[in-house]
């Protein structure tokens, strides 16, 4: 992570608290505009700045998440190598003593647990994509406010190129994987039944 990225993270952490709120509270159609004060041009610029900062955060978190994944991959490969070595040792004539075999089995079993935990940690990294999409939703709302101000004043930043379309309905925080699966399966079943009828 370089300094500008760290700065972006720090800025996002301290500055936009008020603006984040504004994004949530301001629906698609903002209230009729009062005569534009000079400060609005600055606000439009700030809005654009916040959007760039959020974009920087998502880029950094994706890259850093991949670094964590690299580490987990390395651990996983080392565990596999260790398991191989233990298997070889178990077959050695000098390792046939009952207590030694017992200890080796326990080491194998611990290795298996480590491997499972590494896989679980990898799966948990899905949070990165979910968080990114939540941030993208915030960016979407900020952009609407930004465009509104720009329309009002004929000034400000130009729209950027095409972005990923945003998720309107990210699964509610707190739903369990089972609940999400059951929900999807229920809709699929209903859809299939309705197809058969028609």
């Amino acid at each position, binding site marked *: 992570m370089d300094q500008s990225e760290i700065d972006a993270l720090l800025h996002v952490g301290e500055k936009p608290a008020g603006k984040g709120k504004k994004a949530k509270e301001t629906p698609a159609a903002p209230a009729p505009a009062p005569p534009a004060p000079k400060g609005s041009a600055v606000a439009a610029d700030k809005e654009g700045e916040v959007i760039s900062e959020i974009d920087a955060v998502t880029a950094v978190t994706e890259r850093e998440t991949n670094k964590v994944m690299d580490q987990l991959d390395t651990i996983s490969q080392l565990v596999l190598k260790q398991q191989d070595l233990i298997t070889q040792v178990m077959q050695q004539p000098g390792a046939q003593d009952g207590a030694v075999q017992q200890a080796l089995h326990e080491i194998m079993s611990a290795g298996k647990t480590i491997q499972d935990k590494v896989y679980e940690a990898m799966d*948990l990294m899905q949070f*990165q*994509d979910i968080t*990114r999409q939540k941030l993208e939703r915030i960016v979407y709302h900020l952009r609407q406010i930004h465009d509104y101000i720009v329309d009002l004043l004929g000034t400000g930043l130009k729209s950027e190129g095409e972005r990923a*379309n945003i*998720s*309107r309905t990210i*699964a509610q925080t707190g739903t369990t994987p089972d609940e999400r699966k059951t*929900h999807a399966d229920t809709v699929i079943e209903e859809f299939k039944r309705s197809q058969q009828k028609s």
Partner: protein
Amino acid sequence: MKILIVDDSSTMRRIIINTLSRIGYSDVIEAEHGKAGLEKLGQGGVEMIITDWNMPEMDGLEFVTVVRTTNSSIPILMVTTNAAKEDIVAALQAGVNNYVVKPFTPDTLKEKIESLLG
């Protein structure tokens, strides 16, 4: 069994690839949006598609719709954060065979893939 994974998140592609390799599928190719997915598909040999919905350039729904104009049989699994009923129905209408809501567990992904192939 060659599987095409289409998702704009490199983290998510990696997680899906990991899960696939754990359940025995290691012949995988990747694309970061629908447009790139169509190119990969054009190179041939793909037997199953796992696609995200929210992506730049071409989203998953459009991608599936385009794929279905020329290929009605390839199994398509959509893996997305979009959880609303109308989204799931729209995806099924576009031609998706099954649907997984992110974040998923490896067991769910495994079950869905096996049901598509079995």
